[in-house]
């Protein structure tokens, strides 16, 4: 019985040590994160002010005869 206890202790010890060493090796060979360089961050696009909810509701904007984004307005012709 005592022999089995010792075997299990040794097995746990070896398994823990080998797992630690495998983890160490994996981390050592993993790609490193890049150093943060503020100059490498692209400048954020300047956005037009968002219209207030009231403005949108009062204008009742329809997608049916125009589409608008920050870049341009696309009018639509579908017939009458």
């Amino acid at each position, binding site marked *: 019985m005592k022999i089995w206890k010792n075997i299990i202790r040794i097995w746990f010890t070896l398994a823990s040590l080998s797992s630690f060493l495998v983890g160490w090796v994996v981390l050592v060979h993993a790609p490193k994160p890049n150093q943060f360089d503020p100059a490498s961050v692209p400048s954020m696009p300047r956005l037009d002010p968002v219209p207030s909810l009231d403005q949108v509701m009062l204008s009742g904007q329809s997608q049916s005869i125009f589409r608008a984004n920050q870049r341009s307005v696309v009018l639509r012709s579908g*017939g009458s």
Partner: protein
Amino acid sequence: MQIEYFRAMNSDIVLVAEGEALQVKSGVVAAQNFIEASEKRFTRFSEHSELSRLNRSAGAWFTASPDLFEVVQETVFYFQQTNGLFDPSILPSLHHAGYIHSMDEIRRSSSMPQPDRHPSVSASSFASVELNATNSSVRLPADMQINLGGIAKGWIVERAARLLSQYASACAVNAGGDMFLIGYPEGRDSWEVGLEDPRNPQVDITLLLLQEGAIATSSVVKRAWKQGDISRHHLIDPRTGEPANTSWLSVTVLAPHAVTAEAFAKAFLIADEDETQRLGEQNPALTVLAVDRGGNLTNPVKPVESLYVSH
């Protein structure tokens, strides 16, 4: 860029204008007021409109306002230019087909429009309308009733855009797809206009890059309804007095003026193959785009120059 949306002339109206904010705001108000006042003048759905009074006075001389006189003058001109295919004297035919109330009312109502008892075609030709420019008066033949719907809309759109342009560096007025463009948005040399797919109105069939001027589309699917089991639409063929039996779902015309685009969009939609070629030869400055029943975009007259951005 300021965008104003409202509903008038049974259409969605969009005013787009660029410039100094307060100026543009004043221009938008002026243009909107002009559109709403003009609608009251030209609508056939109000018995108090000037157009309804003109129709009631058929057979006698009617002294018209300068605006109504100008629109009737334009109408006579385009009746001649389209060889009679654009004909506003089809009002009895519209009534006969059930288009008695505005589309907004028809859509709100659950009942189908029924034909009235009027004959479907006037005996008199629109060519017999008389105009007297010295006192702005008009005489319709006694049996004639006219509808200025589309051409009046075109006239209003261009006038409203010219009014708005006095307050803005660039502007566009779009009334249900009939539009007039003045100047260009900042940093651009054209306006982007999506051409709606008549089979799937949420999708654009192509995107056009347009210069200043007008674009108008006539479509058999926009103002359409059922009369019993029969599908009807508002584009009447003046030769038959019935909704046009056409191979096109929609026809779009680009022209220097909105009334031109509007009149020819209707004419090309109604025209048969020979008439289409004749109209095209007589009016080489127009660009015509048509969508057939298969959803194919074509030019029935001549190849289109570099208008397409994408399909």
